[in-house]
């Protein structure tokens, strides 16, 4: 009986490792792959073949297998680079079957259907792990290590960016993070951890064949994570426990044992359906216990809020000191002969202008004038057909969005795009984090202490910023629970936190009540006084007139007027264009 329990324990530990590794990519980064059994299998085969064919001893075999599988993980995500959403899921499903086909058919290497037999139990430092008890201890130890690795990764500054990628990839790019490199890193890590599970499995069963690494097994790993809660590592332990013991428990019911295989499948499918309908966040969910979930009515930024905003100025000026100095007489952002057409329609045509630092510029124009297209061209979400964009004298036309963000251009989005299922503080921290340092996973582990200190520093800055904005008591609330004006504020705060020198704000006043709009206008003016350059696209003329120094008037993709607000407003011709009439 004891041996049986240990046997179950070993299986639970192995699948816990698999679950935890899968949670990293599915739960934390939001990449839906239905092919995780691929890494399980590659890890198992690699380890087994190294021992059986080349006689390499166990610990080394596992380590080589980890690296090999990690590389396969990298190749996997590179292949899947362009696929999105449920097409990605189908592609991974297909890939899982392709790899299974390779396992079965490439008999020269994998020994085909028969599989690899005679895998010895590990033996190192003169100690042989031949008894179940010994092996159980080894497995538990490795499980704990894998868990710790995953835990540290997800609770570090690196993990925070993973969650941001899950929430909104485009927005994460706009904060200066190279999203793809994060994905590659996490896939390498996840595949490597899965290899540990695979290796342990191979050396435990002492034989493997392709039928342990099928689509059904990939689905099982998925269910393990979903049951426990995507984004919750303890949940994956719980999930492994449930999915291993439940079918085993059924073996004890004589009537059921005949149908053991079928019942297992039916059970898993049923559990999955049940979870989807009743509790998609899994048994443990993602959030910490005790998070207060109250839905806010549309609140306003009131007098108190405005006073808090003025305190923000203090923080801003500290930030301002870190901004590199740029000559106030030279344009900070320049656009030259910019053109972009969409299928024959000229959205932006031969546009040239210069924006001076430290000023607030408003871009207005009737519908279809090309304002949002212009924005996207500057922030590099679109490539122009002709023309150049210059930032601080450097040409930046060909850069990708995250690079432009790093250089110092931050943006807000029309549809807010805050990281809803992350806390308010985390939203700010993602923006604050330095893109150079936090991307390197190795640094995270080798210099763990330093990383921890760095994170503390970030937290302090973040809390400071939140205080200045009056959001400090909401710091642990989920961003999606905030009221709309508060979310707006958070989005702007995030852009400020990136220390961007130029803020491109797209319809930032939309959806606000008059009081909040007033407060926002004041905030923007304060930011500008502290050296930030602000560029607004707006339809709300009241807001524009009260906030900007210069107006650019766009019509049909062309710049037709430029000047101080008073001048633009008094121009009758422009009024007619804006409201229709002469074209």
């Amino acid at each position, binding site marked *: 009986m004891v041996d049986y329990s240990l046997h179950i324990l070993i299986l639970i530990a192995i699948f816990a490792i698999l679950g935890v590794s899968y949670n990293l990519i599915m739960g934390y980064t939001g990449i*839906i792959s*239905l092919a995780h059994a691929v890494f399980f299998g590659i890890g198992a085969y690699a380890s087994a073949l190294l021992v059986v064919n080349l006689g390499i001893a166990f610990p080394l075999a596992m380590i080589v297998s980890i690296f090999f599988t990690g590389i396969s993980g990298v190749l996997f995500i590179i*292949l*899947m*680079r*362009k*696929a*999105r*959403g*449920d*097409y*990605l*899921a*189908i*592609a991974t*499903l*297909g*890939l899982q*079957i*392709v790899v*299974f*086909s*390779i396992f*079965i*058919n490439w008999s020269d290497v994998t020994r085909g259907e028969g599989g690899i037999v005679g895998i010895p139990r590990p033996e190192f430092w003169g100690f042989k792990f031949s008894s179940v008890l010994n092996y159980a201890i080894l497995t538990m130890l490795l499980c704990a290590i894998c868990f710790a690795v995953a835990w540290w990764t997800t609770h570090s500054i690196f993990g925070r960016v993973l969650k941001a990628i899950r929430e909104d990839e485009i927005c994460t790019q706009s904060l200066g993070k190279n999203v793809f490199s994060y994905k590659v890193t996490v896939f390498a890590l996840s595949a490597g951890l899965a290899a540990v599970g695979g290796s342990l499995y191979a050396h435990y069963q002492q034989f493997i064949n392709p039928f342990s690494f099928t689509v*059904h097994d990939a*689905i099982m790993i*998925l269910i393990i994570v*979903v049951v426990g809660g995507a984004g919750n590592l303890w949940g994956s332990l719980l999930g492994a426990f449930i999915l291993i013991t439940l079918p085993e428990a059924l073996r004890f019911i004589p009537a059921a044992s005949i*149908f053991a*295989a*079928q*019942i*297992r*499948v*039916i059970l*898993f*499918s*049923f559990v*999955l*359906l049940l979870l*989807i*309908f009743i509790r*998609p966040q899994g048994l443990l969910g993602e959030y910490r216990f005790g998070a207060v979930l109250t839905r806010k009515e549309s609140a306003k930024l009131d007098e108190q809020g405005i006073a808090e905003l003025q305190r923000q100025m203090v923080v801003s000026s500290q930030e301002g000191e870190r901004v590199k100095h740029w000559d106030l007489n030279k344009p900070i952002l320049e656009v030259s002969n910019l053109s972009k057409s969409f299928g024959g329609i000229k959205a932006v045509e031969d546009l040239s202008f210069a924006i001076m630092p430290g000023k607030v510029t408003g871009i207005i124009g009737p519908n279809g004038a090309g304002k949002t297209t212009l924005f996207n061209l500057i922030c590099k979400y679109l490539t122009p057909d002709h023309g150049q964009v210059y930032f601080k004298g450097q040409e930046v036309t060909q850069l990708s969005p995250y690079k432009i963000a790093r250089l110092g251009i931050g943006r807000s989005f029309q549809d807010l795009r805050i990281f809803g299922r992350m806390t308010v503080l985390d939203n700010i921290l993602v923006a604050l984090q330095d893109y150079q340092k936090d991307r390197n996973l190795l640094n995270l582990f080798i210099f763990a202490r330093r990383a921890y200190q760095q994170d503390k520093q970030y937290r302090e800055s973040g809390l400071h910023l939140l205080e200045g904005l009056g959001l400090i008591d909401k710091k642990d609330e989920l961003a999606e629970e905030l009221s709309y004006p508060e979310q707006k504020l958070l989005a702007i705060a995030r852009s400020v936190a990136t220390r961007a020198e130029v803020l491109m704000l797209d319809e930032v006043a939309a959806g606000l009540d008059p009081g909040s709009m007033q407060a926002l206008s004041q905030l923007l003016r304060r930011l500008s006084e502290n050296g930030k350059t602000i560029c607004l696209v707006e339809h709300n003329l009241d807001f524009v007139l009260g906030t900007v120094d210069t107006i650019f008037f766009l019509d049909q993709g062309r710049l037709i007027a430029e000047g101080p607000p008073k001048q633009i407003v008094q121009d009758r011709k422009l009024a007619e264009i804006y409201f229709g009439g002469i074209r």
Partner: protein
Amino acid sequence: MELLLQLIFFGLAKGSLYALIAVSFAIIFFVTRTLHIAHGAVFVVGAYIFYVFISIFSLPWFLSALISIPLSGIFGALIEFSIYRPLRRKYASPFILLLASLSVLFGTPGVLAMIFGPEPIFLEVPKKTFIVGGLAFTTVHLAMFALWVLMGLFLLYLRRSQGGRMMRAVADRPLVAEVVGIDASKINLMAITIGSALVVPAALIWGLEQTVTPGMGFMPVLMGAAGMILGGMGNILGAALGGMIFGLAMNLGVLYISSGWQEGIALAILVLVLVLRPEGILGTRIRW
């Protein structure tokens, strides 16, 4: 040369199976915008219903086929009604819908295996063999060619009838359809019922050609999806074409590659198409 001709003949015949599966999968996807991989469950259930009627109720095969078609349609409608619709009302993401579909796809064979046992079932249906000009084929192959006729009729239905028009409208612009007064949820139900009924002849011929097993639906539905994607998302004709190309390729492939690799290679093509050109070979121009 003769071998090649033979293989093309059989490829076209067998290709009709994949084409029909792709077409039935595609109409559901275009209208409901759901990747209904549980279609594989409908596939296998259709075959088992047929088996029940010819073996347990001893009905002639023609009648059994005729009954299993609407019954499978109802099964598909049931999935839409009890699973997809409630989830959509909760604003479930496409991924959640896919997961739910996945659980039906994997759970159904389990139930079928419990009821009928996991062993393959051979369908007892009278077959005649013909030899024409050196080519040997059976009534089953004739039935396969009949599937092309069925697809033609379906296309006609889509083009000419008001029901077909409404399905195309919802597939084209769901918001405009709603604004014009079309009840989208009724049309969704209609699409999945028709798609589920449509795939049954393919399932029956598949079961006749090979055997009926609980897991027989998995590969066909993936191939059908592959055919649809290969042919370009948004195009029923493309789906048929894509499906047929798969069928042809699989059969010609036997010449050069051992049969074990066939599925792997076919799926590798699917994966490559998905990651390199998700809009398929014929592109997204919706042309019915």
